[in-house]
């Protein structure tokens, strides 16, 4: 067991995957010689050489296309799109080709692609470099969406994503890169589609991912002092979604608050609520609530960005309202 940062866990996962399977190759803008814009791929070129670890031009459509063609032929492309917001410049490949290719060919091909990208706000990167773009893909069947919050999950989920025969969008939150956590010497894989109950509680279920998981947990500790015992669940993957774990918790607590770093319209939280109330309305003792961002682009100014993000006090406040409903 050792203490590593989220960044180190990612690098370790990529190295182990490259080691394990000759078909895996890593590519993207400045991932090789420079070790990544966020230093997330440091040392990998040196260790695996230029066939396995490749720099590309600034050509996201070409990056995604390369991933698709190589996957169809049996390689296991591990592509990086630097800021997740840039998924917009290669959206056609991600939304129209990757998730439909297998279906449209009647199962002739599989699509074992992993696309890593950095999402998330809080760093002053502004409206076009801070979005939680996993929400853009919720209505696109055929993609898996992974949103890790800890070094161990970053490692374990990335390994699972790379081994997975299906396409995975893997989101790395910029605010977590330096977060520390434990990693076993032989770290474990974490299966896609398994939520983690991060804190057990009886009065209310909080569901949150990535940076918001940490804020939800902080809120839960504050709430405990006020006598509210919150369960905190991190779904870890949005597709597939571990509805059972969340539903079981809600059936027990009767109360649900989703905390998410995005506007609520078209969010994963809204989808979760719609599914739960459709199946188990009678289990809710209070309205299920979404604590999200306001319906605006993400402002640059620190003063405004902190207001835009769901804060610990806002979470606490909503939970208190929900439990006293």
């Amino acid at each position, binding site marked *: 067991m050792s203490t590593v940062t989220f960044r180190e866990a990612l690098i370790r996962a990529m190295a182990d995957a490259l080691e394990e399977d000759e078909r895996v190759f890593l590519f993207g803008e400045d991932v090789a010689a420079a070790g990544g814009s966020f230093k997330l791929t440091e040392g990998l070129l040196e260790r695996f050489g230029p066939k396995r670890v490749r720099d590309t031009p600034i050509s996201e459509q*070409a990056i995604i296309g390369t991933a698709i*063609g*190589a996957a*169809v032929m049996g390689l296991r492309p591990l592509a990086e799109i630097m800021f997740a917001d840039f998924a917009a410049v290669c959206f*056609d490949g991600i939304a129209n080709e990757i998730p439909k290719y*297998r*279906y*449209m060919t*009647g199962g002739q091909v*599989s699509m074992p692609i992993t696309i890593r990208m950095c999402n998330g706000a809080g760093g002053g990167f502004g409206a076009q470099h801070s979005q939680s773009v996993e929400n853009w893909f919720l209505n696109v069947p055929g993609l898996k969406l992974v949103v890790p919050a800890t070094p161990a999950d970053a490692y374990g989920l990335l390994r699972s994503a790379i081994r997975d025969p299906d396409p995975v969008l893997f989101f790395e939150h910029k605010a977590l890169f330096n977060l520390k956590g434990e990693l076993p010497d032989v770290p474990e894989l974490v299966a896609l589609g398994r939520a983690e109950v991060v804190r057990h509680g009886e009065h209310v279920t909080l569901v949150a991912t990535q940076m918001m998981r940490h804020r939800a947990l902080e809120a839960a500790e504050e709430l405990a002092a006020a006598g509210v015992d919150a369960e905190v669940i991190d779904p870890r993957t949005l597709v597939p979604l571990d509805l059972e774990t969340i539903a079981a918790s809600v059936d027990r607590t009767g109360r649900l608050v989703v905390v998410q770093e995005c506007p609520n319209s078209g969010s994963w939280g809204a989808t979760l609520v719609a599914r739960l109330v459709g199946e188990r309305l009678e289990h809710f003792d209070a309205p299920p609530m979404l604590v999200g961002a306001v319906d605006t682009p993400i402002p640059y100014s620190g003063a405004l960005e902190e207001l835009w993000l769901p804060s610990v006090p806002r979470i606490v406040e909503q939970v208190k309202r929900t439990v006293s409903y």
Partner: protein
Amino acid sequence: MSKASATDANVATAPVERQLDWLHTMLQIRFFEDECHRMFAQGLVRGSTHLCQGQEAVVVGACGAVSTVDKMLCTYRGHGAVIAKGAPLDRAFAEILGKADGLCGGKGGSMHLTDMTVGAVGSFAIVGGHLPIALGVALESQYNDRQEVTLCFFGDGSTNIGAFHEALNMASVWKLPVIFVCENNLYGEYSPLGTTTPIERLSTRAEAYGMPGLTIDGNDVEGVWRTVSEYAARARAGDGPVLIEALTYRQKGHSRSDPAKYRPSGELEAWLERDPITLLEAKLERLGVDRGRLDDMRSAAEHEVLDALERARSWDDPSPEQLEEDVYA
């Protein structure tokens, strides 16, 4: 019409039997699409269809220059390319009819014929979308040290979309074995090339990517075969991609609903005189093949097509369970 070719010194002539094979395939494609046209007119199939009639020499010559293990990607106007690459006629028809035993289980349709077993990696209907994909297909063979090439067909109008640019640039940087074949049929949908593109010869765009570019007669199947053979050899040797502009003509409208009224008068007629099948038949006659053999081949091809269609029509629709299959592996 063509620029200097890669190995001018060594211009091959194809044996007559080989040219007869090409003719056979071109006839199959022609009859296949006649039937597509008819089925759409009769309302037997849905959606849209895009015929490549008049362009058969490009795909037959190019696919003839590579082998089954080589790969090919094409557009929604891809019936010809997929048949030229070796896909069976009956399953191709069945796909267009939406049958369970269609090439794609009925889930793809006319615009998306795919047959991995013959290297027909896909037909793509979002303009330009497959050019970047061709890179990955070619990369895999480079990665695994197999000297294969990837053919990538696309239209003239497609050279104005961003994906074209990114794909050609990166293919050149990585020296990927891709043969980019631009089927210049003078129109993108209803727009003549000159209204959307400020240069005459699309092959000059190759210079922007440091790769060879050349313009050839796309209605001369042997010429296409010769050029693609040369550049395929070059690509297999590790010298990277090429952009080949094949000049040809779409004898029908853009899609089933287009009567193609925007053509200047006389244009179609002039190109019909240069119909690639007529040209090849005339040449074969000059080479001593007698007319009777050509006529026999024509009716054989027609029968093969009609038989294939009859089989395909007798097959079943997909079953309801198939709706949710093939999303994830």
